[in-house]
């Protein structure tokens, strides 16, 4: 099938009309096909490119989505009696209700009982009080009228008969089915706190005689194997509060908190059960309101206090300035709804909490992000108890009319807020609010610290030092190359700079990290003197050259100064660097690092900002150079000719005419170079220590957004907050460079139009 255009009319005439028409139709069809094919392909490619932005946004969006909750069902309370505690298992299918008679497991979606377990209480003994251990452990304790306590754990076994998940609830007794003695003299327990660990368990009880008694139970494998032996330590704590209403032991069993309804709180050190000590006593009441709820946040470091005016506040101990002494301090509070908080349920593995109040409102908060996730009116009436499932995806709330409300929560990323991403946050165990990036740690109760500020700071710091090196070199070089250099030399300089641009950054990074960093460390004075001496050395050489007889000078034509300067620059460089040890001995007592530390108090990292500045400066020079050179070279020739004809020297023409005209182009060159420095990954990854510090010190490293992504992305779980925050970092980089580049590009296009109109 040949569709070549026939060259001679006679040939066309010889072809039958019908064939001609067919052929023309076929050609037209092909033309249309090409048009549509190319259009579809072209538009498709452009859409694919736009997709990058939207996909990044799509992954980041869930971070910004507010939490939500919707009711699933509500039903009458299964079983009788007064609810002491509610809890759910991992899947949110089965819940447990503790009353003073029995433990009742029931289905969360229907309220239908699954199994009931009467309490194995000795005859004639009643339940007097109830305590809850760490939520994740499932441990609770019944305080009894004979001064003992029964420790119970709700546990769930998951089996898959016929590929169907079957959850069987069980009741376990970690300290045995016999109640454990808490009150030494057998007094009735009025208040109780419990915490069960791997080896040690702690029970603290307040007796009806007003005594605070502590029992530490240690389970030891006996040497002969088999039976575990229980060792019990007992002691009495000094009680300075009257009628404490709340008792809490933290999960590490190190601290005991006792608080009264009026908000007086005492903190004890019970690490050594034989000699407990009162650490401090203070009031945590706010504006005269009463304390209506006191719980520990997941991890057990923070106290959460709910008040009668509906407020909630978070407290943890902070080291006082200039001392080792720690004091409990109010960290942050959440806004009030004017109705007393009746119960607080901390989430099991995150730093969030659920709170219910006396007017039927349930609110979810997150402490690190310092925000209210949501607040719902569950019922017009009061809510008494609340439980949250371990995955924090369901809640179960009991109202004052003996009904249970089962809701589903959608709250994937509560830890993200504007303030937790960019602001100073007071993290647990820190002495003050700080900008911290620490996305993961070994412990489960770790509070993720997703502050992008230190990373953004590191990015800008790296870019700043790179630009400090690159901008003068690149722009001065561009001026010379485009305006003064002999065309022949220019022809070979441009490819050299292009090669420089093409060098893989991994190679620059590797040289910076393995060669330059140790070199800079040993030649620190030399590097600094190089930067200072170089301009003067060049000027000196130029002056000497100027003094040479005219016949000699004209041997070298104009525009070859750069070539002449190569040996000069080399000589100055060599001199500065080889004199470096001598300078170090004369000026810095032989060790500049030590001198910096002692005299200026500056820490020195081997992979520091100087190394990054030099290496990344090297990478950015060609980008700035080629764009700036282009802008200056394309300044219309009649402008310069006119200026020169009016008697201006070349230098005057350059500064007054050429640079003024080309300045937008130079600006856009710097912007594009900046964009490249901000997004560069491999160089900073290899040439810095990658510690996210916020310190402008030139002798220290940094961690940039890009390097952080490269380091942490492969390890982050898909869909997790960490994963999405890394996408957010990528989006920030994308937006930043895109905006900067677009600006630069628009400036350049304007300039080009201006040149063509001149």
């Amino acid at each position: 099938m040949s569709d070549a255009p026939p060259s001679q009319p006679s040939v066309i005439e010889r072809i039958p009309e019908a064939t001609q028409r067919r052929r023309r139709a076929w050609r037209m069809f092909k033309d249309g096909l090409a048009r549509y094919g190319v259009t579809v392909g072209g538009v498709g490619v452009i859409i694919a490119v736009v997709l990058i932005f939207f996909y990044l946004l799509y992954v980041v969006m869930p971070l910004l989505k507010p939490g939500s909750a919707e009711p699933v069902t509500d039903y009458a309370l299964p079983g009788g009696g007064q609810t002491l505690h509610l809890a759910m298992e991992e899947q949110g299918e089965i819940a447990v209700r503790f009353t003073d008679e029995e433990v009742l497991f029931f289905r969360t979606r229907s309220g239908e009982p699954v199994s009931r377990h009467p309490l194995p209480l000795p005859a004639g003994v009643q339940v007097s009080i109830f305590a809850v251990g760490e939520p994740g452990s499932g441990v609770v304790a019944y305080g009894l009228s004979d001064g003992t306590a029964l420790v119970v754990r709700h546990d769930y076994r998951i089996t898959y008969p016929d590929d169907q998940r079957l959850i069987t609830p069980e009741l376990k007794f970690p300290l045995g089915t016999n109640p454990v003695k808490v009150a030494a003299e057998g007094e009735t327990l009025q208040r109780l706190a419990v915490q069960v660990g791997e080896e040690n368990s702690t029970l603290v009880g307040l007796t009806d005689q007003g005594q605070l008694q502590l029992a530490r139970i240690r389970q030891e494998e006996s040497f002969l194997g088999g039976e575990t032996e229980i060792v019990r330590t007992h002691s009495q704590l000094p009680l300075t509060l009257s009628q404490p209403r709340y008792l809490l032991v933290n999960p590490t069993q190190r601290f005991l908190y006792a608080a009264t309804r009026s908000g007086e709180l005492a903190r004890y050190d019970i690490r050594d059960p034989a000699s407990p000590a009162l650490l401090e006593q203070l009031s945590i009441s706010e504006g005269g309101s009463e304390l209506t709820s006191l719980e520990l946040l997941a991890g057990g470091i923070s106290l959460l206090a709910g008040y009668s005016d509906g407020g909630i506040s978070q407290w943890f101990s902070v080291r006082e300035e200039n001392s080792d002494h720690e004091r409990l301090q109010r960290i942050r509070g959440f806004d009030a709804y004017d109705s007393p908080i009746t119960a607080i349920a901390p989430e099991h593995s995150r730093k969030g909490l659920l709170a219910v109040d006396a007017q039927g409102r349930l609110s979810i908060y997150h402490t690190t992000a310092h925000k209210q996730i949501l607040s719902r009116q569950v019922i017009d009436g009061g809510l008494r108890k609340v439980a949250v499932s371990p995955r924090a995806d369901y809640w179960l709330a009991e109202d004052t009319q003996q009904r249970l409300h089962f809701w589903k929560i959608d709250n994937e990323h509560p830890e993200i807020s504007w303030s937790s991403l960019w602001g100073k946050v007071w993290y647990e165990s820190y002495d003050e609010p700080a900008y911290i990036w620490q996305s993961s740690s070994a412990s489960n109760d770790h509070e993720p610290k997703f502050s992008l500020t230190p990373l953004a700071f590191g990015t800008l710091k790296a870019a700043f030092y790179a630009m400090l090196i690159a901008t003068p070199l690149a722009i001065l070089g561009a001026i010379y190359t485009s305006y003064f250099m002999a065309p022949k030399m220019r022809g070979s300089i441009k490819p050299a700079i292009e090669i420089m641009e093409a060098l893989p950054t991994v190679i620059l990074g590797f040289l910076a990290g393995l060669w330059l960093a140790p070199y800079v460390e040993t030649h620190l004075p030399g590097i600094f003197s190089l930067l200072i001496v170089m301009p003067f050395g060049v000027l000196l050489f130029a002056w000497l050259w100027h003094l040479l007889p005219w016949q000699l000078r004209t041997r070298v034509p104009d525009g070859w100064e750069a070539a002449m300067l190569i040996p000069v620059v080399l000589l100055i460089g060599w001199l500065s660097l080889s004199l470096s040890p001598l300078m170090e001995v004369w000026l810095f007592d032989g060790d500049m690092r030590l001198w910096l530390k002692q005299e200026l108090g500056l820490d020195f990292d081997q992979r520091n900002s100087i190394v990054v500045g030099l290496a990344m400066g090297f990478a950015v020079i060609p980008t700035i150079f080629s764009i700036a050179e282009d802008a200056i070279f394309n300044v219309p020739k009649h402008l310069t000719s006119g200026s020169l004809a009016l008697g201006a020297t070349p230098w005057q023409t350059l500064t007054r005419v050429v640079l003024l005209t080309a300045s937008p182009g130079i600006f856009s060159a710097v912007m594009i170079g900046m964009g490249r420095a901000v997004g560069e990954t491999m160089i900073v990854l290899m040439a810095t220590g990658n510690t996210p510090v916020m310190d402008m010190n030139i002798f220290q490293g940094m961690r940039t957004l890009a390097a952080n992504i490269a380091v942490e992305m492969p390890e982050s779980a898909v869909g997790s907050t960490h994963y999405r925050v890394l996408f957010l970092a990528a989006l920030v980089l994308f937006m930043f460079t895109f905006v900067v580049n677009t600006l630069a590009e628009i400036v350049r296009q304007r300039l080009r139009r201006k040149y063509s109109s001149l």
Partner: protein
Amino acid sequence: MKRNLGNWFKSGTPWVWLNAAAVSASLIMVVGLLALIAVRGLAHFWPATVYEFEYLQTDGQHQRIIGEISDSEIVTRARIEASGSAEVPGDTPEVERLLIKTGNRDLVGLDFRWLLEPRVLERSMPTDVMAVERYEWGNFYGFLQRVKQEDQVVAEGEAAWQALQDRLARATELQHRIKDIEKGRIGSINYAMEQLRLDRRRLELEGRDTPENLAAIEAEQARLQADYEVLQRELGELYQQLRRDSFTATVMDGREVEVPLAKVVRAYRPNAMSTVDKFGFYFAKLWEFVSDEPREANTEGGIFPAIFGTVMMVMLMSVVVTPFGVVAAVYLREYAKQGPLTRTIRIAVNNLAGVPSIVYGVFGLGFFVYFLGGNIDDLFFPEAQPAPTFGTPGLFWAALTLALLTLPVVIVATEEGLSRIPSAIREGSLALGATKAETLWRTVLPMASPAMMTGLILAVARAAGEVAPLMLVGVVKLAPSLPVDGNPPFVHLERKFMHLGFHIYDVGFQSPNVEAARPLVYATALLLVLVIVVLNLAAIAIRNRLREQFKSFDQG
């Protein structure tokens, strides 16, 4: 002509000189960097002289140290004293210190140590010192004493050297056969076994696990198992033969050490070699470097898998990026209505070239690997679940990610080529009755092809050097098998691969013994730089020729 400093400054000449100095400094930096890489990279293969030092230790004892000088530097006395090491004899403020590669890591723990030059009492180059490259523990330096066969001494003294070389040749031959069996034949049996397991699982999933089908699979498995056992026996015998020989040598502290030949790659006497021998050795090492697999956590041996992976990835990427880039450029330049929208798109495409490469990596990981790959796995590879096939970083996704990354390069270059074609040529073709498609296909595109070529070359150069996105979408430090092998379907796009750039990062920064790995990193860097410089020079040459061509068009 008054030679006055004030006038001189007023004339502006000094500033011109300063500007010139910026160019000189940039040039020196580029050339210096290339020279540094070239010198260090090429020196790696040269058989370095092995010295014997008489060294005065801090406790006044003399010690004999044998090794290659790997680096030397001048430091101030204060620094040495601050670092807590020995006091320095003499009173010069500066001291030279030498980094000596002493090898024998299995015997002394550290294979590098710093010597202070003033404490070196004597330095000699014994001709009979022997350097041995080993499969484990790095180099060995010592004086050959005797060669043994099954604990019987077969050669001693001067004759030992020849005997060692002969027996080493035999051991190398055996090593080759062992590798052939292990990598090749047992490798493909393992692959077939895995395929059978997957077949079986697929039958179960599709409910076709009838007894006949299962029996067929089991029969095949039994056959493979039998083959495997035969090979295993053969391998056992080869290993038995390999273990036959060994040699003993005295090391620097006077101990006599026995080294089995099974552990030896090559043995040579660098100080006794003539220049011709050294060149022979040099090229043998160079060949090993580009053709062999890495040893010892990538710090020794060759980088063939990395070269192969890079080439493979870049080729795949070119196949993807060329048509899409060209189509997009043709659309933008020839079909789209030239207006503000097209201008905006053009700016946007231009700017994508400036978006940090790591962003593409993040996109590739999220979209290609987890989203596309995850769905492909669900649809086509349910039998391999929960192990991902395409839902994990791999060669194909790496190529796609880099194609996206280099798309702007190709689009911009092609567009530039298209815009340089005088419109008279298009109009001429149209006036002769050709349709637009015909004009494009027969005149415009052929004329623009050098521009496309330039774009592609630049894209390849960029892709070959890019590492950051690849770290997320598919490179690994050590790939167990190449993406192409003898097992059907021969090309395995889902496999992870090795890459020159990542190799540099990994060996230079993640390796436990960076000092030992350093020369290899320089050599790898040199190779990568060479590839990229050559590609770029080619692009520049093509572009220049293109410009000349169109210049003649304009004039003619």
